[in-house]
């Protein structure tokens, strides 16, 4: 992106504010289940400041939160990019984790490979990916075993 198109705002996560969208970027720390979800909380706050309606904000924050948790418990963290347009919000969660061998199986409600310690923390019920699909208008999973996973979600405003 040419630097000339960038305008700094007072929101620290804003990487680039182009003519028609604002980009927020976050590194998701895979070592730390305690901090998992911090990026989603920040996105939620930003969307509220920008004046989006509560329904849209909830869809984006819940689906991103589940995706963020997945990157932490299944993939050693990764990168989250949120592009905010007037009519849609695009969330891209990219990791270099183990990948998902069978995406159809992973999408099934209740399917989970999460370890017991994660389950005792309230996650790992195999509802994350189904929740993400439910709350978003479009969802795409690209994954290669041993290379990583990229989940792209679109919420229309």
């Amino acid at each position: 992106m040419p630097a000339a198109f960038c305008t700094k705002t007072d929101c620290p996560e804003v990487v680039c504010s182009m003519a028609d969208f604002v980009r927020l970027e976050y590194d998701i720390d895979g070592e730390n289940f305690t901090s998992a979800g911090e990026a989603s909380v920040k996105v939620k706050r930003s969307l509220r400041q920008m004046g989006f309606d509560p329904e849209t904000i909830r869809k984006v924050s819940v689906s991103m939160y589940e995706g963020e948790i997945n990157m932490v418990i299944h993939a050693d963290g990764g990168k989250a990019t949120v592009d905010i347009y007037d009519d849609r919000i695009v969330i891209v969660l990219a990791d270099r984790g183990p990948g998902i061998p069978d995406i159809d199986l992973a999408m099934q409600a209740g399917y989970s490979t999460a370890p017991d310690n994660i389950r005792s923390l309230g996650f790992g019920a195999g509802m994350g990916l189904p929740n993400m699909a439910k709350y978003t208008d479009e969802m795409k999973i690209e994954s290669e075993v041993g290379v990583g996973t990229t989940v792209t979600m679109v919420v229309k405003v």
Partner: protein
Amino acid sequence: MKISEIAKLLNAEVLCGEEELDREVKSACGCDMMSDVLAFVKEQAVLITGLCNPQVVRTAQMMDMGCIVFVRGKMPPPEVVSLAEKADIVVLASKERMYVACGVLYQNGLSGGSVLHG
């Protein structure tokens, strides 16, 4: 029901949000699976749970729930309470078990509310 009444009915300690105890809440959700909360909560403002980790607070925050009740005598660590404080969430801690806590509140008029389907 006011949050102060929840605290009274459950004999609960107020860990943060003292100044918000007058807030009115209509319905609640009792749950230990955070993904279920994320999937089904609609307008329930109170989360009753036996879990005590930061993700409970973030889940409540995502769902705009303004009050968390920790049951079974679980005491959340200070960092969990301060996270809730920052998010404007009232935190109560009660010795009641989940089943009893939910039953008492339900009986006193705090409903389950409606849930999201699909």
